[in-house]
């Protein structure tokens, strides 16, 4: 440690090389910090629970095409048959699938008319089995009753009497009330169509994962007669894949003039939904890892060159009484200084890049803790990279000093 002064002064004699390395470290830090920030950001988006029992759920689409296709009859029969399948916990018809990207949203108001805050909510049409099939928890109020389930035609503009909303919807509509206290309140849809909130569910995501209101969902007690319908099925744990096949075959066996298609699990749907995020994360991880390796190898290369260039100087130092540890220390301290300078620059540029990203890509501000963590890691990386060449330097024989080449 008592070599700091001379090492620093010697470094100043080789400013450009040291500066280039420092710049490289600064940029490495900048990229790593911001990349990991982005990765974390995406991770937190992906970690939001959908509210479903994803591992044990799947869905399929049934589309009628023949003239004699009796939709209402087919739906009732299908659902009955599906629920009877051993291993099926419950099944419901649903118009859209959470996270799938396609669905229906409407505006809800707390007062009738065209004025006032219009809160967008995703609409899921389900029957009284919806709550169990989706595996959402009713935290207040009641489920729909069997008798209130009605049928909805394609161009219908009317709405039923009751609805169930998520806690997040309740908070948005009635910010002053606890979600449970909103049971019995009325929301208005399509201007002045009233809907009574009869129940609150804890959590359920909308079909669009990028929507700011992704937690805002409303369940409406209707089955749809849109020509094409989706069935959402929840199975006992571990039975999903078997039941998927059985369900498809079961429906195909009913000669009803319809197609069965798009049989997919919730797991696949989640993967598809977050594929872009997942891909960006992978790309960023690869960048971070490669960058770290390149920078580390760059340091190894630089120090190796320097050691080779300074072989005679090292021999001289050894002759003058430097121990192996002193020589190792020299290179370690030298690297520490260059790295520290680079990290200081990196501190500034990391923040600058983040400010730009916040501005250009609406990314959240970086957590301050990233900076010291990245610095410590890069310090260690530098020391690790320098260790090998420094040890070779320490192995240089002091007898080199007397060689006249």
């Amino acid at each position, binding site marked *: 440690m008592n070599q700091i002064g*001379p090492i620093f002064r*010697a470094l100043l004699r080789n400013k450009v090389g040291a500066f280039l390395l420092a710049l490289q470290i600064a940029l490495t830090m900048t990229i790593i910090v911001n990349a990991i920030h982005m990765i974390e950001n995406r991770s937190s988006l992906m970690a939001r629970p959908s509210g479903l029992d994803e591992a044990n759920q799947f869905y399929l689409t049934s589309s009628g095409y023949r003239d004699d296709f009796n939709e209402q009859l087919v739906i009732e029969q299908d659902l009955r048959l599906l629920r009877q399948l051993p291993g099926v916990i419950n099944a419901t018809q649903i118009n859209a699938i959470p996270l799938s990207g396609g669905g229906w949203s409407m505006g809800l108001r707390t007062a009738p008319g065209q004025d006032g805050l219009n809160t967008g909510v995703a609409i899921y049409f389900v029957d009284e089995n919806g709550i169990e099939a989706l595996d959402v928890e009713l935290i207040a109020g009641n489920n729909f009753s069997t008798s209130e389930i009605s049928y909805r035609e394609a161009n219908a503009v009317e709405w039923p009497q009751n609805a169930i909303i998520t806690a997040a919807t309740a908070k948005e509509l009635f910010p002053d009330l606890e979600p449970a206290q909103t049971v019995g309140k009325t929301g208005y849809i399509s201007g002045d169509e009233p809907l009574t909130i009869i129940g609150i569910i804890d959590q359920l995501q909308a079909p669009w994962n990028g929507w700011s209101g992704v937690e805002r969902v409303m369940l409406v007690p209707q089955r749809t007669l849109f020509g094409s319908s989706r069935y959402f099925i929840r199975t006992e744990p571990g039975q999903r894949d078997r039941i998927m096949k059985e369900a498809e075959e079961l429906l195909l066996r009913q000669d009803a003039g319809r197609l069965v298609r798009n049989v997919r699990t919730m797991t696949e749907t989640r993967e598809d939904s977050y594929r872009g995020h997942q891909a960006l994360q992978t790309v960023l991880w690869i960048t971070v890892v490669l960058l770290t390796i390149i920078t580390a190898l760059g340091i190894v290369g630089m120090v190796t060159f320097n050691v080779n260039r300074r072989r005679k100087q090292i021999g001289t*130092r050894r002759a003058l009484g430097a121990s192996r*540890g002193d020589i190792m220390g020299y290179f370690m301290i030298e690297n520490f200084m260059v790295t520290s300078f680079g990290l200081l620059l990196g501190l500034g540029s990391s923040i600058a890049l983040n400010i730009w990203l916040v501005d250009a890509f609406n990314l959240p501000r970086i957590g301050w803790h990233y900076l010291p963590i990245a610095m410590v890691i890069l310090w260690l990386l530098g020391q690790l990279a320098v260790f090998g060449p420094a040890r070779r330097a320490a192995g240089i024989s002091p007898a080199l000093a*007397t060689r*006249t080449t």
Partner: protein
Amino acid sequence: MLKMNNISKVFRTDVVETHALRDFTLHVEEGDFVAVTGPSGSGKTTFLNVAGLLETFDDGDYLLDGQSVKGLSDSQLARLRNEKIGFIFQSFNLLPDLNLFDNVDVPLRYRRFNAAERKRRIEEALEVVGLASRMRHLPSQLSGGQQQRVAIARALAGQPRFLLADEPTGNLDTQMANSVMDLLEQINKEGTTVVMVTHDPLLAQRAQRNIFVRDGRVSEVTSNADASELLHKTAQVG
């Protein structure tokens, strides 16, 4: 001061076995000024490296200042070099990125002296070699003779008991060589033991004792009875 008894050193490659030193025996008393001469390949440099603890030896005993150096660890050897030996090299071996002050400072740092002590010693050593005014210059800004004087200052700063010089004037012209030799003699007179390896018989004569090495052995020892007279003569020749 330096007692080498039956030292041998062998370099082995796959094909050849070279005896660089065999049964090398040499005693140097405290305050001596010894010149080691010999044709190239005679083992001069190996002697120098062994004497300076830069290399180990295979057989025999070596006592430096009464202490056997056999079996000492690398760091113990480094410490001995640092405290007891001052080195002067043919090509000076100054560190090009450091100014004169920092160059002289190098061995003192390894000695863990405090800053004030180092500063005092550096200034004193540079004063002795007459370069105190150029402390902040870089070696490349100096002539060869000046560079070697800095190297001598570096060797002196730690106040070693024993100075090892390897062809100290080999890279210098005659005038500069003489001034360097004068300096060495002066140092010797002040009590430091000096061992100088050289191929120049004229320079060797300025030492009190000449040792001629051939085939890795001491083959001849001559004493220059009146060293000062010889010195005078050489100076006139120069």
